[in-house]
C-alpha cells in the first residue's frame, strides 16, 4: 500500500462483507421457504425476506465498488485521496441508510418498486452519499495522473450515480413506471456496472500479471465500447411485454445478443493477460477470483442471458425460474466474484500482511462457485419445466410449482454450499493466520520481478 488514504477501503470492505453475510443468509431463508412454505409466514413473510436479500446485495456490491475506487484511485492518480473524512462520512450515511432500510422493512415500511423499496429518506441518503463520493473521487483524479482505468471507472460511477435519479421518478402509469424503472436497473447492471467491472478487472490484471499498461488499457476501451454499444439498446429486451412498442422486440433481440461480446472479451482478456504476463504474483487467490469472475460472468450474464433474450423465446420463458437462474449466476459471476477478487487482492495489503489463508480463500471460491453453478442448473431445469407446463400447456401456476418441489429442495442444498463458502471467505479475510499453507512457486524468467504485497 503506497498511500495512507487507501486504508479507507478497509472499512468499506468490512461493511460490504457484513452485508454480504446478511444477503446470503436471507437468500438461504428464502430458499428454505420454497421448501417449507409455512416457515415464518406470519411473522416475516417471503416478500420482506426477499427485499432484504436483494437490497443487501445491491448495497454491498456498491460499497465494494466505492471501496475499490478508494483503494485503486490513489495508486492510479499517484496522490492521496482528496478527503479521507468525506469518505468515512459517505460510508456512515450508506450504512445508516441500509440498516435503517432493513429495520423499516421488518416493521413493514417500504416502497413497492422491485429493488427500489428503500424509504424516501434512505433514497435521499444514497443520493447525498453518491454526491459526496463523486466529488471526493473526482477531485482526487483531476489533481493527479489520468489513466484509462480511472477514466472508465469514473465514467461508470458518474453515470450510475446520475441514473439513480430515476429511482425518484415513479409515474402513476404502470407501463411508464416500468420503462423508467429499467433506466436504473438495466442501465446499472448491463451498462454502467460493466464499466466499473472492466476497470477493476483491468487494474487487477495490471497488478497481478505485470502486463504492459498500454496493452491493458487498449483492451479496456474495446471492452467498454462493446459493453455500451450493446447494452444501451439492449435495454430493449426488457421492453417486450410491458406496454412499450413492438419494435423493441427486434431492437432488444439484436442488441442484447451482442451483450455476450463484452463478457466474452473480459474472459479472453483475463486469460490472455495471465498467459502473456511474466509476473508470478504471490496472491494466487486474487488471481483465481479474477479469472473465475470473468469466466462465470461470461456464462451467467452472457450465455444464460442469451438463452432467453430472443423475443420468440422470451415470450414463453419471461418471468419464470429461467430468469431466476440467469439472475443468480450473472450477479454472482460479474459482480459478487469481482468484488471478492478485489477484496482478496487488497485486504492483505490493507492489513499490512502478505497473502495469507489462501487455501481457505480458494476453497471458498470453489464452494461458492460450485454451489452457484448447481443452483443455476437446477433452476434452469425447473424453469424449463415451468415454461412448458404453464406457458405452453396452460396449467395453473400453483399446480406447476407443486411439481417443481424436488428442484427447490436441490436449490436449497446448493444455497447452503454458497452460504458456507461465503462465511469461509469472510473468515479467511477477517481472521489472521500467520502461517502460509502453500509456498509461492519460483518466478518465471523475465523482466518483471515479483514483488510481494504489490
Amino acid at each position, binding site marked *: 500500500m503506497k498511500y495512507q488514504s487507501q486504508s479507507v477501503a478497509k472499512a468499506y470492505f468490512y461493511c460490504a462483507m457484513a452485508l454480504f453475510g446478511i444477503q446470503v443468509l436471507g437468500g438461504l431463508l428464502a430458499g428454505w*421457504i*420454497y421448501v417449507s*412454505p*409455512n416457515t415464518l409466514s*406470519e411473522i416475516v*413473510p*417471503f*416478500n*420482506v425476506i*426477499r*427485499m432484504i436479500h436483494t437490497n443487501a446485495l445491491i448495497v454491498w456490491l456498491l460499497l465494494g465498488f466505492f471501496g475499490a475506487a478508494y483503494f485503486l484511485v490513489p495508486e492510479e492518480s499517484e496522490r492521496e485521496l482528496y478527503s479521507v473524512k468525506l469518505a468515512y462520512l459517505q460510508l456512515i450515511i450508506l450504512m445508516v441508510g441500509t440498516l435503517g432500510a432493513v429495520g423499516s422493512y421488518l416493521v413493514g415500511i*417500504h*416502497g*413497492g*418498486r*422491485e429493488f427500489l*423499496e428503500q424509504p424516501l429518506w434512505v433514497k435521499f441518503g444514497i443520493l447525498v452519499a453518491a454526491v459526496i463520493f463523486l466529488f471526493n473521487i473526482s477531485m482526487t483524479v483531476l489533481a493527479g495522473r489520468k489513466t*484509462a482505468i480511472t477514466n472508465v471507472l469514473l465514467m461508470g460511477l458518474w453515470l450510475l450515480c446520475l441514473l439513480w435519479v430515476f429511482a425518484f421518478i415513479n409515474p*402513476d*402509469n*404502470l*407501463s411508464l*413506471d*416500468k*420503462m423508467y424503472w429499467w433506466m436504473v436497473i438495466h442501465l446499472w447492471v448491463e451498462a454502467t456496472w460493466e464499466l466499473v467491472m472492466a476497470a477493476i478487472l483491468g487494474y487487477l490484471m495490471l497488478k497481478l500479471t505485470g502486463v504492459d499498461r*498500454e496493452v491493458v*488499457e*487498449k*483492451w479496456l*476501451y474495446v471492452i467498454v*465500447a462493446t459493453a*455500451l*454499444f450493446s447494452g*444501451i*439498446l439492449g*435495454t430493449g429486451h426488457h*421492453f417486450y*411485454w*410491458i*406496454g*412499450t*412498442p*413492438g419494435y*423493441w*422486440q427486434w*431492437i432488444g433481440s439484436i442488441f442484447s445478443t451482442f451483450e455476450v461480446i463484452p463478457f466474452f472479451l473480459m474472459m479472453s482478456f483475463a486469460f490472455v493477460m495471465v498467459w502473456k504476463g511474466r509476473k508470478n504474483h504471490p496472491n494466487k487467490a486474487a488471481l483465481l477470483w479474477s479469472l473465475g469472475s470473468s469466466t462465470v460472468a461470461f456464462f451467467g450474464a452472457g450465455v444464460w442471458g442469451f438463452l432467453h433474450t430472443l423475443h420468440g423465446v422470451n*415470450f*414463453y420463458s*419471461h*418471468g*419464470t425460474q429461467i*430468469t431466476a437462474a440467469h439472475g443468480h449466476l450473472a450477479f454472482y459471476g460479474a459482480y459478487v466474484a469481482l468484488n471478492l477478487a478485489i477484496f482478496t487482492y487488497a485486504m492483505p495489503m490493507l492489513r499490512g500482511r502478505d497473502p495469507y489463508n489462501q487455501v481457505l480463500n480458494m476453497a471458498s471460491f470453489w464452494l461458492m462457485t460450485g454451489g452457484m453453478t448447481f443452483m443455476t442448473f437446477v433452476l434452469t431445469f425447473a424453469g424449463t419445466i415451468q415454461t412448458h407446463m404453464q*406457458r*405452453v400447456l*396452460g*396449467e*395453473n*401456476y*400453483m399446480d406447476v*410449482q407443486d411439481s417443481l418441489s424436488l428442484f427447490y429442495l436441490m436449490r436449497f442444498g446448493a444455497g447452503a454450499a454458497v452460504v458456507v463458502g461465503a462465511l469461509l471467505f469472510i473468515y479467511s479475510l477477517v481472521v489472521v493466520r500467520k502461517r502460509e499453507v502453500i509456498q509461492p512457486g519460483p518466478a518465471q524468467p523475465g523482466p518483471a520481478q515479483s514483488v510481494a504485497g504489490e
Partner: protein
Amino acid sequence: MAEILTKTRARNIFYGGSIFFVVVFIALTAQSHRHIVKTSTAGMPLTEQVALGKHVWEKNSCINCHTLHGEGAYFAPEIGNVMTRWGVADDPETAYEILDGWMQAQPSGIEGRRQMPHFEITEEEMRALSEFLRWADQTDTQGWPPNDAG
C-alpha cells in the same frame, strides 16, 4: 490486437459510439413514452382510483412475491392478467368482490402451501387495487402472457 487500433483510437470509438447510442436510445424512449400514454394503456382511463390502487400495490410490496407483466418475484402467480383469469376484466363490481374475498381469506394456513400474508386494507383501498389490476390487465402487452395461466 491489430496495430491499426491504437489506444487513442479505441478510446475515441468508445466515446463517439456511446454518444451515438445514447442519442438513439433517448429518441426511442421518447417515442415509447408517447406510445404508452396514447395507445397501449389508453383502453381505460388512468383515474385517481387507479393511481391509488397502484399505491396500495406498492405499499404492500406485492411485487416481491408476484410478477406483474412478468416482472417481480417468482414465488406467486402472475397478476397482470389476473382479472382475465377470473373472467372479470370488464366487471368492476364482481372483480372487487372476488379480490376482497380472496384477500380476506389469507393466510390460508394450509400446511405445505405457500402463504399469502393478511393485509390491512380498507374498502376504498381494496376497490382501488381492484381497479388498478383491471387497468393493468387492459394494457397492450403485445399478446403476453401466452395464455390465461399467466
